[in-house]
């Protein structure tokens, strides 16, 4: 089937694409390409455009306009729908972020096509695309397909193999003219979170999680210390969030964030189903819990049955030694 696979760019709002775009572009190329980037922004940097090329985009459709920031679905949707109707891409892919999930859903409705949200696998079956999605708290995998193109999907971060950046690979930039409707939503303010200095939960390659076994909010500092040493984000279980120990934005699980890091380290986390729903696609799972019967040990690759308050400082010290050596 003719047509390109479009990859909607998620950026840092300052002109640089996020590194998750290497995963989306890599997957689009693996599905047969051509992998083309589509970037809606008020400010695209030359370095950012070069980066998309280096990751293998064969073309960048740049929709650059002050009216595209802040992101509002009511403005983005007609803009990209107009371009899609003209260019007939075979697929439109985007990484899972809070805004892309909303935008892609609205775009699917406007184009009258299907959307496979939070996909963890994509594969061609003849000339149709099959997406794999975790459902029912991740207990079951659902395979879905589309009645017609463009096939819209959002991709869970850290699951798809990223394209390797090749310096010197460049993509031509097209600046199509599209109609932007006036926005009815007005931004009042943006409240930035106080940065912990650690990576964002859904993007982090390593995530440390503290559960009820942390005993209180004051003890998370030992996890943050470890996070600083190994470059990990620090999250929490629902029990810890509901106890008021951590803000909700740090919650991992069914009613929190879904993560899929290379390495997950859970301390004092029991492993309730709703927590597993948010982290079971992690590649390597480590659990430390005093209770040898804790369900998290059933899915852990490595477990230590011990008091986390003895393990965490020792482990932080050991990580520090390892990383100083290498």
């Amino acid at each position: 089937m003719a047509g390109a696979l479009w990859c909607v760019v998620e950026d840092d709002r300052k002109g640089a694409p996020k590194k998750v775009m290497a995963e989306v572009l890599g997957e689009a190329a693996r599905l047969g390409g051509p992998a083309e980037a589509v970037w809606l922004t008020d400010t695209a940097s030359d370095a950012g455009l070069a980066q998309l090329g280096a990751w293998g985009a064969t073309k960048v459709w740049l929709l650059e306009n002050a009216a595209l920031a802040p992101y509002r679905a009511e403005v983005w949707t007609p803009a990209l729908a107009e371009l899609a109707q003209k260019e007939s891409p075979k697929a439109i892919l985007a990484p899972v972020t809070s805004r892309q999930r909303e935008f892609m859903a609205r775009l699917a409705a406007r184009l009258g096509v299907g959307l496979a949200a939070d996909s963890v696998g994509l594969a061609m079956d003849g000339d149709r695309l099959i997406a794999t999605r975790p459902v029912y708290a991740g207990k079951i995998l659902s395979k879905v397909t589309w009645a017609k193109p463009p096939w819209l999907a959002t991709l869970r971060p850290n699951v798809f193999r990223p394209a390797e950046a090749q310096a010197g690979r460049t993509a031509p930039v097209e600046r199509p003219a599209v109609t932007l409707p006036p926005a009815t939503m007005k931004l009042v303010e943006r409240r930035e979170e106080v940065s912990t200095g650690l990576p964002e939960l859904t993007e982090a390659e390593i995530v440390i999680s503290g559960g009820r076994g942390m005993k209180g909010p004051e003890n998370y500092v030992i996890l943050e210390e470890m996070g600083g040493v190994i470059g990990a984000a620090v999250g929490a279980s629902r029990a810890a969030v509901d106890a008021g120990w951590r803000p909700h934005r740090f919650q991992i699980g069914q009613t929190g964030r879904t993560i899929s890091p290379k390495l997950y380290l859970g301390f004092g986390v029991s492993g309730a189903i709703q927590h597993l729903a948010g982290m079971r696609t992690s590649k390597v799972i480590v659990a430390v819990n005093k209770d040898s019967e804790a369900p998290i040990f059933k899915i852990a690759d490595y477990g230590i049955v011990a008091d986390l308050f003895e393990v965490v400082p020792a482990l932080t010290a050991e990580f520090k030694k390892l990383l100083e050596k290498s």
Partner: protein
Amino acid sequence: MKIVVCVKQVPDTATQVKISGADPKAIDTAGITWIISPYDEYAVEEALRIKEKRGQGEVVAVSLGPDRVKEALRSSLAMGCDRAVHVNDPALAGADTLLTAKALAAVIKQEAPGLVLCGRQAIDDDMGAVTAQLAELLGWPCAAWIMEEAVDAEAKSVRVGRQVEGGLEVFDLPLPAVLSAQKGLNEPRYPTLKGIMGAKKKEIRDVKASDLGLAAEPPQLSITMLEALPPRPPGRIIQGEIKDAVKELVRALREDAKAI
């Protein structure tokens, strides 16, 4: 002000979910405990709070699904919703998010509310698409993952804080609008005994696709099959003194798993 809340009935998180032996595209619904999707409870709660704060208005719960969905609507009424609409039509059994949104949008057009509230996503299929699709079909602005909201005195606009990576974006939206509730928006109430008794007398109106003027159409996204999650390879409990166990863990993470 009239507010429509969209709710979905889903299996309880702790319920065992098995793939149906008869149909590899469906789950076996025998023995499942059904609940209102937790995010939808935040939406119901917020709608009730808006009504209570304004001292007037009406909250209408809407849901799509088979007969069992009445139970979820009855729970919404017990929490305090005034009445309910049940889109109950076997023709919509295989509905994807877009067909669901079309049916709900048709109900919303009939009801003509000032505000529509949904949950961020339903915890069965986790698609999280209906809110934005409703907004598109209705031609209204939308904001997803809201953590706070305030409707202005004239019910002309709503100020919402939506959660995004790295912070909160506060927007003013003209009404009518569609919002989706994120955890943290509120703490949903439990139905009181009086509420539960009162709910039995409240109206649940059944509607069919034809009542909504919906033409039969195939879904745009369909399930080809469901698969049980492949089991993870068995893990390893590292025994011994803590200092030795920690050393061995770090070695294994570096050399065997190559995870650090």
